[in-house]
């Protein structure tokens, strides 16, 4: 009886052993090669195709989640210009970090527009964007915004500035900085504003600790999730992009926008993928986005124009604040390392104490 079981058993054991060896070999080969596989399709975001038949070229625009409607309008306008005639667009909008990772892993793109510079730097490291992408006249920035406070109509908790956010009983909603670029802008806006008021770095950090540990009620994964949470009834005040706030108000959400005395200038970058098969058209498109005509469209969509001459025309839409840049705080690379990189980043440590699922190591 035993002899009859030996052959099949031996075969089974050999097969299993070969499978395990094969698994380890594939893992060893596949694990070391960095993302050269081509994946297509968007990373779970939305997008579309614009432009008619007979286009000269179709540009793949990969953007962060919020400016989708603005780009739809602006891309249509581009196609109507002599330079943009015949250009069709294939767009994809989703969370900035996820999009950046997807393009680094091989998602086709000709132009990328993300919410923070480090998401572009990732592509420089991956050899997809030229290292001098930020050398242009606007330093690679396509439009600006700022961090504002969104409150309930009538402002029942009388929020006027950053110091009101840490008053007892005030409930704040802001996204999770580990997963959201918007959250990092919000936190640095608060931190920088405290420094502007004359607080020392450790006092400003103590402010962040109080804000995140005591007053923040929920930290959803993204800016849009945070807006949804606020609109559905959570919290008294939401920190968000001014452009999002303006769009939400125009869409009819019952909110009121409060501008603090000082805030951070959100500078959203744009870059051309140097391996694009339509490099000339992509560069022409990005160049056009920085012209007064395009910047005027940005202003109409709720984004602060980067050209001062155009910005002047929108002084009624965009109030004057004391705006400081991320560069005045050390630049994103330094800020990310000091504040947002696990396990020793100062905000990471605060978030851990607050019980938020943030990055662990």
């Amino acid at each position, binding site marked *: 009886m035993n002899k009859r079981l030996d052959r099949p058993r031996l075969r089974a054991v050999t097969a299993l052993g070969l499978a395990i060896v094969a698994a380890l070999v594939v893992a060893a080969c596949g694990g070391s090669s960095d993302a050269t596989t081509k994946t297509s399709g968007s990373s779970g975001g939305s997008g579309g195709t614009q432009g008619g038949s007979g286009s000269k070229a179709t540009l793949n625009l990969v953007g962060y989640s919020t400016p989708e409607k603005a780009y739809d309008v602006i891309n249509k306008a581009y196609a109507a210009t002599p330079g943009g005639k015949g250009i069709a667009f294939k767009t994809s909008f989703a969370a900035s970090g996820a999009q950046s990772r997807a393009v680094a892993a091989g998602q086709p793109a000709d132009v990328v527009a993300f919410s923070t510079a480090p998401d572009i730097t990732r*592509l420089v490291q991956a050899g997809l964007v030229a290292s001098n992408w930020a050398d242009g006249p606007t330093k690679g920035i396509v439009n600006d915004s700022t961090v504002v406070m969104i409150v309930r109509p009538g402002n029942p908790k009388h929020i006027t500035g950053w110091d009101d956010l840490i008053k007892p009983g005030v409930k704040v909603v802001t996204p999770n900085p580990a997963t959201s670029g918007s959250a990092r802008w919000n936190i640095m806006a608060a931190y920088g504003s405290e420094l502007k008021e004359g607080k020392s770095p450790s006092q400003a950090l103590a402010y962040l600790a109080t804000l995140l540990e005591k007053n923040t009620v*929920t930290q959803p994964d993204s800016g849009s999730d945070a807006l949804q949470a606020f609109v*559905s009834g959570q919290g008294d005040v939401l920190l968000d992009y001014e452009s999002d706030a303006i769009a939400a108000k125009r869409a009819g959400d019952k909110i009121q926008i409060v501008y603090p005395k000082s805030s951070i200038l959100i500078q959203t970058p744009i870059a051309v993928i140097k391996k694009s098969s339509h490099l000339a058209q992509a560069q022409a498109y990005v160049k056009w986005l920085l012209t007064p005509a395009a910047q005027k469209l940005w202003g109409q969509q709720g984004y602060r124009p980067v050209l001062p001459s155009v910005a002047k025309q929108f002084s009624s839409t965009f109030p004057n604040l004391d705006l400081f840049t991320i560069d005045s705080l050390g630049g994103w690379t330094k800020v990310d390392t000091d504040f947002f*990189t696990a396990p020793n980043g100062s905000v990471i440590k605060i978030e*851990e104490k607050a019980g938020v699922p943030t990055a662990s*190591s």
Partner: protein
Amino acid sequence: MGLSTLYLSVIVLIPVAALISVALGSGLHAFWTSFTSSLALKALWQTLALSAVVAVIGSVMGTIVAWVLVRDQFPGKRILNSIIDLPFALPTIVASLALLGLYGTSSPVGINLSLTRTIVAIALLFVTLPFAVRSVQPVLLEVDKDVEEAAASLGASNATTFRRIVLPALRPAILSGTALSFARCMGEYGSIVLLATKIPIASLVIFADVESATGSGNSAYQPAAGLSVALLVIALVVLFGLRKWGADRGR
């Protein structure tokens, strides 16, 4: 035999091997820190405790539901039976949204459980219900009622019959359902992502690790992979223990 080995390799073994290679790819020290940092340990403990509680409650309630579905007759029984599989068909994010709307800050029934472990547990009970019920239901259908009737005719009360005749027969099925529920809870993400924004659950921390990875290439995801491997090992140890306990106590 060869086909099933090939299938298992492609679907399970090779992806897990790839995960392990990323976790170990930056050296043993990096692997160690990826799951021993204070947040990682907190997350692993929270997830383990929550999964264990939910698996136990779920299997008790699941057994009761299976009993009702098999032994009782009532109008709408067939509809109720089909609804048991609903959590499988529903995208998990929808479950999260539904619970947020029902038991969150704008709750129409006035119950506000937002940001508590209770609402996370409810979400986990929802997604593991089919495991708890469907693993017991077919076995209960097959159980020979003659033995129960014999016990009753000898004077055993309902409780005694259940405890000494029915339950031992169901034990392997109940343990199997508990193991599946536990494993599902350990890795659950979609149904709790909107609910656990202030609770360090392992799957959410792993997502945060992935999203904060700087740079491209596999080494950027080493922290996420390391914590994932730790989670996997803990789940496997508990599952192995459950199966062994089930095997020891049977016969």
